[in-house]
């Protein structure tokens, strides 16, 4: 069940032009024009949005070390609904009213159809996580994104300034300036200021310090 303190607004908007929701040297999230957006509210205050449209996520989950680069770039098409929490002021400027065609274009019969799916996503996100709402969704606490993946689970991206955590079913990538932890099914890489520690699935440990 969705947490009591969260509500989805009954008013759905759409994005008037392409917006970059997040951008650093490591990654970028963009959404295209006409992406549907419904506000998520907490204590009658908008804390974030559920989006559905077209967009993309690029993330360089790569650690450049003295022993060579480890990791890969992640490219994800954002064609499914996803959640963004934080930085709502920026979004508000780019929203306008929707019409029936905006919903049919995205495969919904009407506005209600979109809200129902948005609620399902929020149930999945808030229902399985013990987020401290007041602490996490303060405007100074960065951004949180939740993207459904093929395994019907959520990929989570948490960012604040140069700090970043990206977690999928396969990988966990943590980056804080020149410190990086990358956990993939085959190995775990810890890199700090170019120094490197790799532990692979056979417990083979390589220290590049």
């Amino acid at each position, binding site marked *: 069940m969705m947490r009591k303190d969260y509500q989805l607004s009954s008013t759905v908007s759409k994005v008037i032009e392409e917006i970059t929701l997040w951008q650093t040297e*490591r990654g970028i999230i963009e959404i295209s024009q006409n992406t549907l957006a419904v506000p998520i509210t907490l204590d009658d205050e908008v804390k974030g949005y559920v989006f559905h449209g077209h967009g993309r996520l690029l993330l*360089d989950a790569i650690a450049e070390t003295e*022993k*060579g680069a480890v990791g890969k*770039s992640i*490219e994800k098409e954002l064609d499914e609904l996803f959640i963004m929490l934080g930085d709502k002021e920026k979004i508000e400027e780019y929203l306008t009213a929707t019409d029936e065609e905006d919903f049919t274009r995205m495969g919904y019969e009407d506005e209600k159809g979109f809200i129902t799916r948005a609620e399902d996503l929020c149930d999945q996100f808030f229902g399985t996580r013990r987020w401290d709402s007041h602490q996490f969704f303060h405007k100074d606490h960065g951004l949180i994104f939740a993207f459904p993946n093929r395994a019907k689970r959520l990929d989570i991206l948490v960012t604040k300034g140069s700090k970043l955590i990206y977690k999928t079913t396969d990988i966990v990538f943590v980056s804080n300036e020149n410190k990086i932890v990358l956990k993939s099914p085959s190995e775990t890489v810890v890199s700090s200021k170019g120094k490197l520690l790799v532990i692979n699935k*056979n*417990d083979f440990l*390589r220290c*590049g310090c």
Partner: protein
Amino acid sequence: MSEDLKEEMTKLKEEIASLKEQLRDVTEKEGRRRGIYIDVGNRVHDYIKDVMEGVAEGIHGELEKSIFIGPRGVRIFKKREHHREEEEVSLPKIAEVMSALGHEHRLRILDELMSGGKYINELQEKLSEITTSTLSSHLKVLEEAGLVVQEKVRGRHLITMPGRTAYKMARRATRFLEKRNQK
């Protein structure tokens, strides 16, 4: 009662007497000492020593099997067979990597990337005799072989850990062959 049994009884009585004496000592010293001290001879000490030596030998053996400290760092193997499995590489994969290395321009790209990630225009400046399109196709070959990775956001090309190793090994192998041929 046989003589042996009598002798055994005498010994037991002596031991009981000795134990009683020790117990008396302990009782007398109880007010002054916190622990209880009973002379158990050297047997227990020897036993503990044997056990600890066995444990130490076991640990040493396991460590010898699983840790290798070399000039390039520490390698820990949980099981040696895992390491052997890891070294098994298919011939087509070897051919792919060798093919990627088997071009002077690609080796020069790797050489440039050894000093750090570079944008394509930086590589173009360093390798001015190669056209941009050729440079891009070489980079694609290196990426497909896993020797180079490109950052999608910044666009820099980076040499990977396997790429660095492969490049160094190619240099060493060539140097080795040259020396052999000179002899």
